[in-house]
């Protein structure tokens, strides 16, 4: 069995995001494996540990993404492919086309990815890859059971659980709760340094940069105003609340 995991290096979610000149400032920022992708990596390694599988990582991003790939290798993945681009595109259609070419060559039985990336948050790339390659797809998976080429996935359906059965080859995107990702051990990290990591350029994949969407500007959300506290008895407060909802917020 071959498992390909799509992995993106993103901002550390603990970091303070600084926007300068309509762009997120990257200087001095910490980068991590996109947390949802980390669940995908963990799941792939667990499948490998319970049977026999090769786990291949594919990432699209600048050279620094190697750190994220090495970390996933240290967790237990076997090898990695980095599609290197110092000015990575945010156009999901183009990125999906690139990644699809790389995935196609690997011909995986299972394609695993995060539900979405915590930076751009579009949740499109993995689905587009599956679409291009004609693979089945189950999104936001919380529990996964494999039996031969039969796949049973429990997915997060807006708070409820939906059970989906399908067959390999399949794309599964990981939702928070799928597992508890391990952290790399020291022997794991040392082994990871010697694991193969291939670098490819978009050109080598034969894909020309073509973007149908562009990021025009990035800005921080407006600061939250302090809340209003309504005083008085319950009856007075309720009356005042209804008045505010009607006259100020204009929602009722």
């Amino acid at each position: 069995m071959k498992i390909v995991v799509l992995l993106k290096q993103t901002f550390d979610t603990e970091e303070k995001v600084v926007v300068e000149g309509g762009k997120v400032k990257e200087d001095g920022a910490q980068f991590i494996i996109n947390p949802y992708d980390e669940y995908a990596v963990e799941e792939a390694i667990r499948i490998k540990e319970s049977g026999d599988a090769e786990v291949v990582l594919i990432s699209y991003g600048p050279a620094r993404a190697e750190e994220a790939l090495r970390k996933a290798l240290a967790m237990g993945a076997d090898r990695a492919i980095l599609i290197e681009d110092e000015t990575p595109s945010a156009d999901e259609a183009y990125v999906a086309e690139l990644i699809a070419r790389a995935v196609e060559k690997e011909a995986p039985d299972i394609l695993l990815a995060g539900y979405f990336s915590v930076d751009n948050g579009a949740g499109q790339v993995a689905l587009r890859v599956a679409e291009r390659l004609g693979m089945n797809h189950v999104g936001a998976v919380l529990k996964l059971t494999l039996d031969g080429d039969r796949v049973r996935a429990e997915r997060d359906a807006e708070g409820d659980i939906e059970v989906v059965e399908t067959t390999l080859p399949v794309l599964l995107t990981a939702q928070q709760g799928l597992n508890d990702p391990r952290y790399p051990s020291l022997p794991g990290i040392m082994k990871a340094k010697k694991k193969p990591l291939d670098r490819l350029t978009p050109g080598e994949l034969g894909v020309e940069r073509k973007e149908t969407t562009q990021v025009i500007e990035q800005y921080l959300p407006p600061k939250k105003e302090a809340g209003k506290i309504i005083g008085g008895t319950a009856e007075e407060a309720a009356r005042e609340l209804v008045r505010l909802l009607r006259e100020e917020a204009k929602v009722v």
Partner: protein
Amino acid sequence: MLAIGFMLTDEQRTVIDAVEELLRKLKPRQEAYFKSIYDDQHYPDELWEHMSALGLFGALVPEAYGGSGLGLLAMTLAMERFAAHGLGNVLAVLTTMDAMAILRGGTEAQKRRFLPAIAEGKLRMAFAITEPDAGTNSFRMRTLARKDGSVYRLSGRKAWITGADRADYVLVVARTIPYEEVIAQGLRERYGMGLFLVDTKAEGLSMQAMETVGIEGFRQFFLYLDDVEVPEDHRIGDEHDGAEVMFDALNPERILFAAKGVGMTEYALARAAEYAKARRVFGDTPIAAYQGVQHPLARLKVLQEAARMLTYQAAEAFDRGRARSEVGLFANMAKYLASETAFEAIDRAIQTHGGNGFSKEYHLIRMMAPARLMKTAPINNEMVLNYIAERALGLPRSY
């Protein structure tokens, strides 16, 4: 910033990154850990398990015995990082020290028996040398190990034994020949001492908690040995020359305490700087802008980096198998500067915090006793200076 000028290997830098990665992951649990360590005097088992899973104890053990063989410096870096997050672990220090005693002084069979379990983090070990009437002058200890066929029988009383209740084994230092006899025979006072790995569940061994403060998450105990039977193959090193092995193991203990001091200093300075940048007292200027606040912190930063260099140097010397006295000199210098600096740093961080320095919420006041302890234990700083004066400057021994 981590010791830019010090030539750490890739593997050693990896240790730092791996520990930082782990601690980053555990950050949401930090308050719960602090409560357990500083309020309940209970170092969380969970953290020990994380250290094991990370392979930190494996770092101490050569590959031939199931470890990764990274050495003491790797553990030194790791202990510093834990302490830098307020999570210094003294039982891990003691386990390291005992592991080094087995590694340097054990037989092949002992190494094969104990080291793999240590590498997996399955063995926790305490160390028992101090007695109510034999502290700094440990040669005068009264605990006696009497040979009885193929076993030893240990009797005596130990005190200030850290984490004995949480340990699987305690490495007990005992007299194999009473002190008076050794002196009467004109032998060196260090002769006639042995090291014994005693199962903490052994019959005849009992312990009583001491009401002490100062070890993060661990209590200290009186240990009563009443004719405790110890198999001969649990003796580490020569029957009468156990001191040789012991002195080898005391250096790693000092080095790891120094690392803990360096880490604590980092914690204190980071908290102080963070608080001072946010705290405004007069107008809109943060107190961090005042030189009266800055300079003491800057000065401590210098001392911290110096202590760090000494600590790494000592660990590196140990890993390279340099002469014990050479390692000892650096281990003692590191321990001295790191402990003095850590105490001052916690004190200064409290001062920077004003009244909040005494609020439990800011944790600093709770670290005061652990910081203070390092000036006294594992050896007091006056004895450390005696050692340095004698060994580095060739000055006469005063005691």
